[in-house]
């Protein structure tokens, strides 16, 4: 009797995997205790013994890859990436959170603080305030650099609560932008300096920032004008100057340009058997997000169908109980990611994603030049 390999059997299409292996390769099976087949089978020779080429070269990737935008507003967006590997999707997520630069307040020069908020707590709070400005217009400032108009944004906060008046809440609308740089003079020993010349300050602006076209009509301010910074009682005063510089989320989370970014795999809910009548009603009632729905098939009989698989949160309620695992299969598609990006407001989310991809390209290029 001659031996026949599994791939030569008549019902298996040539050059493709048999169905059960294809299921293993493309779907994560979520059982009631744990998910199985979670790894992506990336090794190009994985199915070499059955003659199937598993490699994913650039041309095939470009043919298969698709992006579908589901929702896009000024602050957040949700889109689908189909045909990409989790390692690259994760790389984009990590770059969005930690390596996209933003402007945030770093140095706070406090002239007067008689409020109950301590200096360092006040400075910390100011650092977390999101600033609505395009960070690409500015450069990074290293330790040897002097603060000038290309790498620093200067804000002023001077609030006073009058004696006998009510308590006031200091919100971010009190943070005023100073396009000409800092105003606090540096104390110098030399008092014979020319009184008509400008006093030396902490910053070295050669020209005003509002001469730039982006800022001439819209002053730089915080994204939201009603963030509470401090509260003052009668007679208390805060007078300070804050310098904002460019940084990345890796150094400190205040420089993260997204409030968060996450992805999930597309759920694939499949009914393995026909679920009819009372079982169908039970199934529809079990699911808290209404993934299933009832379909009438005549003769008063009802059948359950999967109406909204995308809404599945993998709570596993539908497979809890006796015998349900045989009827419902919960799976996730391994290369279909539903990405959600929530921006802090400095840049719109689609620009953020484009910049993140650019940063991954720059990293690759840096390593290539290092290797050559």
């Amino acid at each position, binding site marked *: 009797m001659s031996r026949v390999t599994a791939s030569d059997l008549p019902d298996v299409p040539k050059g493709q995997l048999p169905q059960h292996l294809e299921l293993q390769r493309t779907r994560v099976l979520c059982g009631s205790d744990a998910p199985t087949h979670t790894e992506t089978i*990336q*090794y*190009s*020779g994985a199915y070499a013994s059955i003659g199937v080429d598993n*490699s*994913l*070269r*650039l041309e095939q*990737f*470009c043919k298969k*890859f*698709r*992006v*579908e*935008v589901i929702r*896009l*507003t000024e602050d957040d967006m949700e*889109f689908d*990436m189909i045909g*990409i*590997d989790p*390692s*690259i999707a*994760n*790389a984009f997520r*990590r*770059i969005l959170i930690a*390596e996209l630069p933003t402007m945030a307040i770093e140095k706070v020069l406090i002239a007067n603080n008689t409020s109950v908020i301590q200096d360092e707590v006040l400075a910390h709070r100011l650092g977390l305030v999101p600033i609505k400005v395009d960070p690409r217009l500015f450069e990074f400032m290293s330790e040897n650099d002097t603060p000038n108009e290309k790498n620093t944004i200067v804000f002023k906060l001077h609030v006073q609560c009058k004696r006998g008046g009510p308590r006031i809440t200091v919100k971010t609308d009190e943070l005023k932008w100073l396009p000409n740089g800092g105003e606090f003079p540096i104390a110098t020993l030399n008092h014979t300096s020319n009184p008509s010349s400008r006093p030396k300050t902490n910053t070295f602006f050669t020209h005003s920032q509002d001469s730039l076209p982006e800022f001439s009509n819209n002053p730089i301010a915080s994204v939201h004008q009603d963030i509470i910074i401090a509260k003052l009682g009668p007679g208390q005063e805060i007078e300070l100057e804050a310098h904002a510089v460019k940084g990345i989320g890796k150094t400190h989370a205040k420089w993260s340009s997204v409030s968060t970014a996450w992805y999930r795999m597309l759920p694939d809910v499949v009914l393995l058997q026909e679920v009819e009548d009372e079982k169908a009603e039970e199934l529809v009632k079990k699911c808290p997000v209404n993934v299933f729905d009832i379909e009438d098939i005549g003769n008063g009989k009802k059948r359950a169908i999967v109406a909204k698989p995308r809404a599945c949160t993998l709570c596993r309620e539908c497979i809890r109980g006796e015998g349900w695992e045989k009827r419902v299969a919960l799976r996730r598609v391994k290369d279909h990611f539903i990405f959600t990006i929530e921006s802090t407001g400095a840049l719109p989310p*689609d620009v953020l*994603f*484009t910049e993140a*991809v*650019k940063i*991954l*390209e720059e*990293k*690759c*290029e840096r*390593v*290539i030049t*290092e*290797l*050559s």
Partner: protein
Amino acid sequence: MELGSSDKTKATFSLADEDHTLANSVRFALNQDPRVTFCGYSIPHPSDARVNIRVQTTGDPAKEVLKDALQDLMGMSQHVRATFDKAVVDFKTSEPVKP
């Protein structure tokens, strides 16, 4: 920095200032290449930003294979960016502008 014996087909590359972000993506790109017999990455200590990528090939010099994988990764990123930009433009033109 490349560390390998006189055998050019096997090498360990030590990259400074990198972490899982690039290393996992490069490892994926390397795996797709049929010339690679073994590839992996490790992070010797989480406090140092240093990544070791090990590549073993079927005959081609490991440095060339790594460079090709990085070029592939760059090509993939550029394609992702182009597809994404086009999808966003399509979405914006098809949706009515909200006030």
